[in-house]
C-alpha cells in the first residue's frame, strides 16, 4: 500500500514538473532550473520561449544605432549594416542558458539609458520569428515577437553575451572593438 502511494506521489510530482516546465525535455543540453524557468516564463512568455529554445536557425546582424524610416533592409526598424555567422552548436546552447537564467537580468529596476543597439539576433522557427536587439553601451536588450516586446537590462551577463556576439563577427572591427 505504502509502495503504491509512493509511486502515485512520484507520478504526481513528475506531472506537476512537466506541466510547469514544458521545455524541460525540448531544450536538451541547456542548464536552466525550474525556478529560473518560472521567472523567465513570466518575463518572456511561452510563445517567445518556444522559439528561443528550439529554433530552426539563428541569424546575426550588425545594426545601426539609430532607427530609419526607410523600411528596406532593416531589422525592427534599424538598418542592417552587415550580417554575421549563424548562431549554432555550443555558442547557441551557451546563449540559451544565458537567456533562460534569471540572474542574467536586472529585474525590478531599469536604468535611464537611451537605447542605441549595435547588434541583433533573429531566431526563426517555422513561421515564428523572435528578434533580439542588443545595446552593449547600456547593457540592454529587447526581445521582439510580432507586437510583443520585452525590454530588459543584462548587466550581469554582459561578458558571456559579448563573447558570443564577437564570435559571430570575427572580421568585423566595430563589433570586435566593443569593450
Amino acid at each position, binding site marked *: 500500500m505504502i509502495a503504491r502511494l509512493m509511486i502515485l506521489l512520484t507520478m504526481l510530482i513528475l506531472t506537476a514538473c512537466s506541466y510547469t516546465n514544458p521545455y524541460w525535455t525540448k531544450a536538451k543540453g541547456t542548464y536552466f532550473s525550474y525556478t529560473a524557468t518560472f521567472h523567465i516564463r513570466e518575463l518572456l512568455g511561452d510563445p517567445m520561449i518556444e522559439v528561443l529554445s528550439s529554433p530552426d536557425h539563428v541569424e546575426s546582424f550588425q545594426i545601426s544605432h539609430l532607427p530609419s524610416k526607410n523600411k528596406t533592409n532593416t531589422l525592427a526598424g534599424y538598418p542592417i549594416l552587415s550580417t554575421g555567422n549563424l548562431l549554432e552548436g555550443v555558442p547557441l546552447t551557451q546563449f540559451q542558458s544565458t537567456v533562460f537564467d534569471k540572474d542574467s537580468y536586472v529585474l*525590478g529596476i531599469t536604468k*535611464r539609458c537611451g537605447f542605441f543597439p549595435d547588434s541583433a539576433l533573429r531566431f526563426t522557427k517555422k513561421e515564428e520569428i523572435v528578434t533580439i536587439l542588443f545595446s552593449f553601451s547600456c547593457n540592454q536588450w529587447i526581445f521582439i515577437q510580432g507586437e510583443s516586446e520585452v525590454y530588459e537590462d543584462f548587466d550581469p551577463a554582459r561578458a558571456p553575451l559579448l563573447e558570443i556576439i564577437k564570435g559571430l563577427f570575427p572580421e568585423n572591427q566595430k563589433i570586435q572593438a566593443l569593450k
Partner: protein
Amino acid sequence: MNMRKQICQIIWLLCLWSFVTTVCQAASLHAIIVADTNDRSIGKSTKVDFKNISAELENIAHATNLQLKKQTFTASAVTRENLVNAISNLQPALEDVVLFYYSGHGYRAEDKKSKWPTLSVDEGLDYTWVIEELKKKNPRLLITLSDACNVVIQGLLSSSRSMAKPRKENYKKLFLDFNGQVLISSSQPGEFSWGGSRNGGLYTSSFLKSLREALQTKNPSWKTLLAKIPKTISIQDNQGRKWKQHPQYEVIEAFSLVSALSTPPTDTDGRFRVEIKTNKGKQNLAFHEDEEIEFFVKLSQPGYFYVAGHHKKSNTELSYLLDINNQDDEAIFIYQVDKNVADKWVSLGKFTVAPPFGLEAIQVVASNQKFDQLPPFQYDQKLGYHIIADNIEKGIDKIRQVKPINNQKTLATEAALIIETKQK
C-alpha cells in the same frame, strides 16, 4: 441711497485694486517638468517622479506665495521642439525662480567634454544647452535637475517619507532668499542612472527625501541638503544585487541686485519719498540695442538726490555715479529739487542702449538735506565711468555708508529699478 451705492463701489474698487496689485507683484516660480512617461522601459518610473515633483511644486508655491507657472511635458509631448520652445520662450522676471526637471533617458557622446549628459529626446537635447540658455535669463534662482543616465554610447532608496511637517519658513529660505544656480545631474560621466516602477528615479526619490528633511531643520541650505544625499546612491534589484550611481551638482550662490535694492534702508516713515521710472514704466523692463531709455525721478518734497548705476554683464560688475548736472565739481552728481518741481517727475535725460548687454540697476539716493559727501569714486578715463566699486555688493555698501548731514530734521530714502538690456 445713491451715496451709499457710490461708497460701496469705491470700496469694491479699492479691494480690487489691492488684489490686482498683490497678484501682479508676486514673484513667480516657472517650472518646466519633463517626464518621458511613454517610454517602454522606464515609463512607469518616470510617472512616479512626475507625480512626486508636481506635488512638491504645489507645496513650494503654497509656502512661498510664489505664483506657480508650470509647463509639463509628458508622453508624446516630450519632443525636442516642444522643450526648446518652452525654454527659449520662457521670460522670467528678475525676482523669479526657474526650475527645470527632467526624468527620462540620457547619454553622452564619446567626444563630449561637458560633465552634463545629453537628454534622450528625439535626436538629443544637450543638458548643458538647457543650463546655459536658462542662465542667460537671469532668474534670481535657477534650479535644474536631470534624472537620467550619463553613459557614453560607443559609436531604491526607500521612499520613507518622514511624517514631520515641513516648516513654511524653510521653503522661503530655499526658494525666496537664495540667489543663484543649483545645477544637478543624477550620475557622473560614464554612469547609469537607475529607477524602479515603485519609487521612481533613484536620484529623484533621494533628492525629494533630502529636500523634505531639510524643510524640517532649523536652517536649511541648498549646499547642505545636496551634501546630505550620499555621494554613492544605490538601488537593489529583485535578485538582491545593488546597483550604484554617483550624482553630481553645482551650487552657485550669487549676489542679488534685486534683493539688495528691493529693501532699501529708510528713515522717513513715508513722509519723504523718492520714485524712479523709465519711459516704459517701473517693472519687467527690457530694452534692446539702440533703443532709447529715459529716466524720471520724483521727490515728494524739496530736497536733493544723486544717482548711482550698477551693471552686471557677463563676468564683470561695476558700480558708478551718474553725472546728472552740467557742473564742474561734485555738484555734477547732485540734483536739487525745489518747491516748483517737488512731487513732479524730473527727467534725467535719454540714454541709448549699447553693448555689452546684461543687467543694469539705477539707484536714486535722496535726502531733504544737502549731501556733505558722496561715496568715494575714481574716474576711469578708458571706460568713462566714475567708478565706486568693481563689485556691486561693495558698491551698494559704500553708498549706504555715506549719510547726509545728520540732524533731527534729516530725512533720507532710496529707490531703484532694474532693467535688462538685450541684443536686437
